[in-house]
């Protein structure tokens, strides 16, 4: 099975993606991650204004199979969270790189461990 891995983003080994915008970055989990997890039933995210640290946990995703920690690809301040996931956690399964996004972060620093799309593809294949 082949998974979607958009070229315009960076990835963590732990299957989170980061999309670098102009002022802020968007964070979510990958297509591979959502497929491994199965149906997502709950996503716990930080509050707006909270700080996240690159490589450290920022939340929890729960599926019918597992509960997993979410790791941040960047350090900075959370300026937006995807409220829709509260009522529709299935968005993570349906559109992991789009409507299933999780955080919007004002970035101070990026993780040293970010992977390119090619590197991440190698990891999951």
């Amino acid at each position, binding site marked *: 099975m082949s998974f979607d891995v958009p070229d315009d983003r960076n990835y963590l080994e732990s299957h989170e993606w980061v999309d670098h915008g102009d002022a802020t970055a968007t964070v979510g989990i990958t297509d591979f991650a959502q497929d491994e997890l199965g*149906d997502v*039933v*709950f996503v716990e995210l930080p509050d707006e204004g909270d700080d996240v640290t690159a490589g450290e946990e920022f939340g929890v995703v*729960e599926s*019918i*199979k597992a509960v997993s920690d979410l790791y941040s690809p960047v350090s900075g301040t959370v300026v937006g969270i995807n409220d829709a996931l509260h009522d529709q*956690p*299935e968005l993570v399964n349906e559109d992991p790189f789009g409507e299933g996004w999780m955080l919007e972060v004002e970035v101070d620093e990026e993780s040293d461990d970010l992977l390119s799309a090619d590197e991440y593809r190698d990891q999951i294949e």
Partner: protein
Amino acid sequence: MRYDQARWTHDADAESDDDRYEPLLAEKNTEEVAVDSPLPDDLTREDLELPALSEPQLARHYTRLSQMNYGVDSGPYPLGSCTMKYNPKFTEDVAALGDAAVHHDRSDESLQGTLGLMAGLQDYLARIGGMDAVSLQPPAGAAGEFTGILVAKAFHEQNGEGEQRDEIIVPDSAHGTNFASAALAGYDVVELPSGEDGRVDLEALEAAAGDRTALFMLTNPNTLGLFERDIEEIADIVHDAGGLLYYDGANLNALLGRARPGDMGFDIMHYNVHKTFATPHGGGGPGAGPVGVTDELAEFLPAPRVREREASGDDARYERFEPEHTIGKVHGFEGNWLVLVKTYAYIARLGDEGLDDASAKAVLNANYLASQIDYDVPFEPFHHEFVASAGDQDAADVAKRMLDYGVHPPTTKWPEIVSEALMTEPTEIESKETLDQLADAFDAVAGEDDETLEAAPERTTARRIDQTDAARNLRLSWQAIDEE
């Protein structure tokens, strides 16, 4: 014979107050009582919305509910790792005796029978586990783990290594509670990958153990039912690194009368009295997870413990005492007393030979069942439980389909070392006929196609549950929910 589970539906329209059977109760008091309530009016009400039922109605209600359930009293329940053994009913009788119903907030002198039983149980458990001292206080297996970890922490703190030793090593095949208990106690959890033979990889352990190691948690036989043959080397590696070795007692039922964790070099252990002996599984209710330790660690155990008094000449032979550097209380009084009474009764009734026989049959039954089924069992030789692989079938579907054959399925998809795992533990209680019934169910399902499996179960009260929808749309109610 074909299995079909009862399915009772609630018919609210059929209920009527008129034909309700009212037992004649002598001196039934229907007098109205005036209550001068200090509560404001908006917090009080005239009517209590409680179902008003006669005793036979109520008895039938609960009997019907039990018919829609499946328990070890209904048939075989080979849920691996959980050890769902039958609880002899005589232990309930013993726990129901008036003498057992004594509150523990009394003087030691007036509790001699109670304290004597506890001292006896501490000794039984110490002897069974090869430990020097036992606390009966922890109220469940996982609470026992947490207690044991706090004891290890207190030990390292006393040696001035409390901050330095901030890691607990846990094998990837361990029970999930090990990881959780370690994290709850504030430790970083280091997960140790299993070797190719499904056992602890000594080189990996050597690399993981060090100055930061507080504890290595292990169950033996492990969750694949495999005996950790290198246990002495494992103990040496952990002890040489300055850490302690913790025994998760979940699989002690395989070793009764044959081997003891204390003799293998374990420093701390908990006993799952519902698995190794026979007390009801807690299910959130009262349980017991006593903790045993070596002499060196006894001073840290929870308070109070019970001991025999030094010859004092008076009648009071037993007393409660506080270990010198106790970690404090982990539960009220001496733990869940009536569960301890049942444990004591079971051990006393079976005796050395009976316990020895129980573990022999547990291992024999698992091996016989495994030899009779078509599914592959990749890791051998196993003891009291085995992990088969459902192969190309989905283990969860296999489990649902087994329900249709009137048996409870094994634990599925865990441990993850085996793909599509069917973790099976028939326990010592089942006869050959019942084991054959289980084997027939396994083999019937092994020969069925995906379509049949995905449609299962068909013969149970509740059909296939939409797990995703159940988790996303919680509906919790004491009343029957009418489907729109």
